[in-house]
Every structure is written in C-alpha cells, then in structure tokens.
C-alpha cells in the first residue's frame, strides 16, 4: 500500500475542488480538478476542461498514485462547475 492509499478521509477531503497534478507509476502524469477520492480504493477522480474541447473525467487508480501536488485552489465559479458534474441528474443511472 502506498502513502496516498494510507491517507485519512480528512486528508483526501482537502484535495477536493483543487487543481492538482497526479504523478502515477510508469511516469504517467495527470492534471485536473479533484472531484473526489474514493475512500475504499483511494482512486482520485479528476475533471479536466481543455480549451476548445469537451471536458473529461479521469479516474486514477489509488494503487497507481505516487504523488499528488496541489497547483491551485478553486474559485466559486469552478466549484459550481464541479458541482454541476455531480448533480443528481444522473441518479437515473442507479435504477436498474
């Protein structure tokens, strides 16, 4: 188990709504806004909004995470944008 997986939910929570750079195994790097960290697998979910492109959601598996560096805090506008991704409009996905 790596250091990232050993963190407490209170630690992971501090990354939410922040722009981070995730360094993963095999020299992969991912940059995006943190939507959540799964407390079971330590998988970190990032939203990216590249210009002139559709945004994407990226799930970096906890076991692959080597380092997470905070680059920037989110402002109110970004927080709203991120909240929109989590809005319960997709709750239909739970019904079988």
């Amino acid at each position: 188990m790596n250091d990232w997986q050993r963190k407490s939910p209170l630690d992971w929570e501090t990354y939410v709504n922040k722009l981070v750079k995730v360094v993963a195994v095999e020299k992969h790097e991912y940059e995006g806004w943190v939507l959540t960290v799964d407390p079971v697998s330590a998988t970190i979910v990032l939203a990216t909004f590249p210009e002139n492109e559709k945004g994407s959601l990226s799930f970096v598996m906890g076991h692959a995470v080597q380092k997470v560096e905070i680059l920037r805090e989110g402002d109110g506008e970004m927080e709203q944008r991120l909240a929109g991704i989590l809005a319960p409009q997709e709750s239909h996905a739970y019904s079988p």
Partner: protein
Amino acid sequence: NSRPGENSRGSENSRDSGAVQKARAELRERFLRLLSGARGRPGRFCLWGGIRLRADFGAADVESGTLQTPLGIQRAALLRSGDLLEFSFPLE
C-alpha cells in the same frame, strides 16, 4: 491478493470520529455517483506496460474493484482494477 482500499476497513476504524465517517461517506457517495454516471460512455483505459484500450464502460463491481467493459465486437470483458492505472470518459 488484497482488495484495493483494505486500508479504510482496518481495525483502526473503531476509533473513527463522526467527522471522519462523514468525510468518508461524502467522498464515497461522490465516487459512486461519478462511476455510475460513466455507464455506457466511451472510455479510454490505461493499463500497466503502456497498454491502452478504448471501450464503452459497462459496470463496476465496487466491492472487488472489477470493471466490466465490452471489448471488440459483442464481446464483454472484465478488467481487474489492479491491472488498470487510469481510465477516462468525455463529459457531456
């Protein structure tokens, strides 16, 4: 082999405060929402050793961390979470 995230299921949890439980629940709920919202979307999967796959996301076994995804034509496959490094989907 241990499942991912056995950490948060250890015996230490008996000492967890309400604040820790609340944070854990919030993070887990967000994760489950996002994962379930990904169903049926075209995903890119990055595995160990530079293996990359494109496949629609099927469903996830949130317990064992197994992902189910169609591969090729009319074929379904199960990806092990331990084999995966990252996967992504376009936002709507």
